[in-house]
């Protein structure tokens, strides 16, 4: 253990914090799916897939999108999974 770890252990997450963060991901997903998404969401997803496919072969689920709301701020979270062999 390096000497820096002594300081690091202070801000180590508790297991309850980890639980909350994990839940927020899975639960936000359902909330988002319940009509909370902007109407353009599915189309944007399809368009992004089309662009991607010009360059790499990806499956239908390669583009994951979420909207996160924090007060007045909206964050579009875009997660693109590339296949393992996409780098040449």
């Amino acid at each position, binding site marked *: 253990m390096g000497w820096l770890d002594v300081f690091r252990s202070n801000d180590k997450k508790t297991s309850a914090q980890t639980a909350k963060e994990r839940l927020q991901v*899975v639960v936000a997903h359902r909330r988002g799916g319940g009509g909370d998404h902007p109407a353009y969401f599915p189309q944007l997803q399809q368009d992004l897939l089309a662009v991607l496919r010009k360059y790499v072969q990806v499956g239908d689920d390669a583009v994951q999108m979420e909207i996160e709301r924090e007060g007045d701020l909206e964050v579009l979270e875009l997660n693109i999974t590339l296949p393992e062999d996409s780098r040449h």
Partner: protein
Amino acid sequence: MAKIIVVTSGKGGVGKTTTAASFAAGLAMRGNKTVVIDFDVGLRNLDLIMGCERRVVFDFINVISGEANLKQALIRDKRHENLYILAASQTRDKDALNQEGVERTLNKLAEDFDYIICDSPAGIETGAIMAMYFADEALVVTNPEVSSVRDSDRVLGMLSSKTKRAKEGGEPVKEHLVVTRYAANRVGKGEMLSLDDINDILGIPLLGVIPESEKVLNASNSGTPVAMEDNADAGQAYLDLVARFLGENRPMRFTEAKKKFLDRLMGR
């Protein structure tokens, strides 16, 4: 006009039946004529928790199928004259529950009772949907634990899509969060989701917090709803919950870790 309240959770073993029994008992103790119905066909347990297992002659399914009338099937609690239970069938399977039959039975009960409590089975299948379908309000029972919270979230989704109120576009089912098996000392140590955490995730108003307590097992051993036990922390918490449900303002209890003896001496 009777109010129909479903006690539901998705996940099993979180305390639905315990909550249904104590909620019904608490409402009855406050002078409301209350019936609690076990919707867990095939796995009935409410009768055991209420301590009337030897008095079940006819059950909910017998009533639905017309083999018995409500008067024959309703069991009056020996401790409170306002409290009745309608047991589930142990032998039939859950397909014996049909929407028309449930509606007919609930309508008949509504003529006589102030509150109808529906104790939902675990899962999200027919039985659970049947239990919530006609509900005006819902108690969503949740443990401070990841799988329970996620399942409660699923159930909230169903309450807003699969119920009669949702389908007919009326006022939505009023949702209440009930957190059970809460261990304040573990929350204090960061080992358990706190009330705020659960609230942030599920986003429905908190009606009550029931502490993790050995009194719950003691009460179920003897077939007494824990709300009827004197000096039981969990029972007191259920009575508080009932009072809040009836519109009283009661602060949450049992949500702070017990202070150690030394801390108390030092005034910490």
